[in-house]
């Protein structure tokens, strides 16, 4: 299989994951698009080196988070904790329930962006359905560190989103 076909297949399978991880690092849509391209480019270069020691999804997530961390080093535009944006996406003509779900999704996205990096990385993977062992593998930390981070993140998200336990 050619490198291009392989890359296209991986993008098809994991593009959504990459896009959501990029969104957890950057609020500005244009910069988020640039970051997503950077992640895709890094994936293109790293893919030939993947030997299956970690699952492909874990490998992709690790690359996306590494690029995200580099992005944070360059420029940080996430809102301060507690300052969730009021200008949520216009629901347009979508049904009311769908619009509500999108608003809730956008609020959650902003709350995740406001988390400290360590918690944010663990949370995005947990929300993507990664097991604690997979999160530990992707981030290069111990499983009990994942437990601690997710517990703290849950508390922070509750406070951010204003929900009762």
């Amino acid at each position: 299989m050619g490198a291009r076909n392989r890359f296209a297949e991986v993008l098809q399978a994991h593009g959504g994951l990459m896009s959501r991880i990029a969104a957890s690092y950057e609020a500005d849509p244009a910069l988020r698009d640039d970051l997503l391209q950077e992640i895709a480019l890094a994936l293109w270069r790293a893919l030939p080196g993947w030997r299956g020691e970690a699952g492909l999804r874990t490998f992709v997530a690790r690359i996306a988070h590494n690029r995200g961390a580099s992005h944070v080093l360059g420029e940080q535009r996430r809102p301060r904790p507690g300052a969730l944006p009021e200008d949520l996406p216009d629901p347009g003509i979508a049904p009311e329930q769908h619009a509500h779900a999108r608003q809730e999704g956008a609020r959650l996205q902003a709350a995740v962006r406001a988390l400290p990096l360590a918690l944010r990385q663990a949370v995005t993977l947990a929300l993507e359905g990664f097991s604690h062992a997979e999160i530990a593998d992707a981030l290069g930390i111990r499983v009990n560190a994942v437990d601690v981070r997710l517990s703290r993140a849950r508390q922070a998200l509750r406070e951010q989103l204003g929900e009762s336990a």
Partner: protein
Amino acid sequence: MSTHDEWSDWAAQWRTQPVVDIERLRRRTLAKRWRMLAMVVFETVTAIGALVQTGWLFAHPGLGLRWKLFATGGTVLVVVMWSITLWLRRGTWRAAGSRVAELLRLDARRARAGIRLAQAQLWGFAALLVGVAVLAWPSLQPSAWMHDEALRRLLLVQIGANAPIVLGGVVFCLWYIRRQRRRLARIAQLTAELGMV
């Protein structure tokens, strides 16, 4: 609400984000890769062209020792600038399969190397200025240019053309050093955030 339900709800909300256009992303990624390759090829060809030109100047039989030394200095400067460009671009070519902790350590090493390079570049500018002043010293004497209109014009053109380049280079180096120091501080903060210290 139980912890499990809470995570399930959040996970469902998380996936309501807009779907990305994969085909567009694939096309733009490949195009970007080609642009980066084309830029490196262009810079390499330009540097080789500059080397050939200064080499030709150096080998020119009618040229005095002073200008041969100047051509040598120009060659060295081209090689140094080209090396610095490639060095700085290394970070944008690397595969990113390693872990965040290793990546941050690598970034910190590169930021420190960048500071050292910029400092070396400042010393290089100083050396260039001193070298040029020594070479051109006889022509810089007022007695030489006061009554020589052509020389006066040549000196003014040289100063007018090169002073902004050198000044711009110095300002860039100082800005770059400051930026890399801020980057190092940010890396330290991120490292602490990630609980790696």
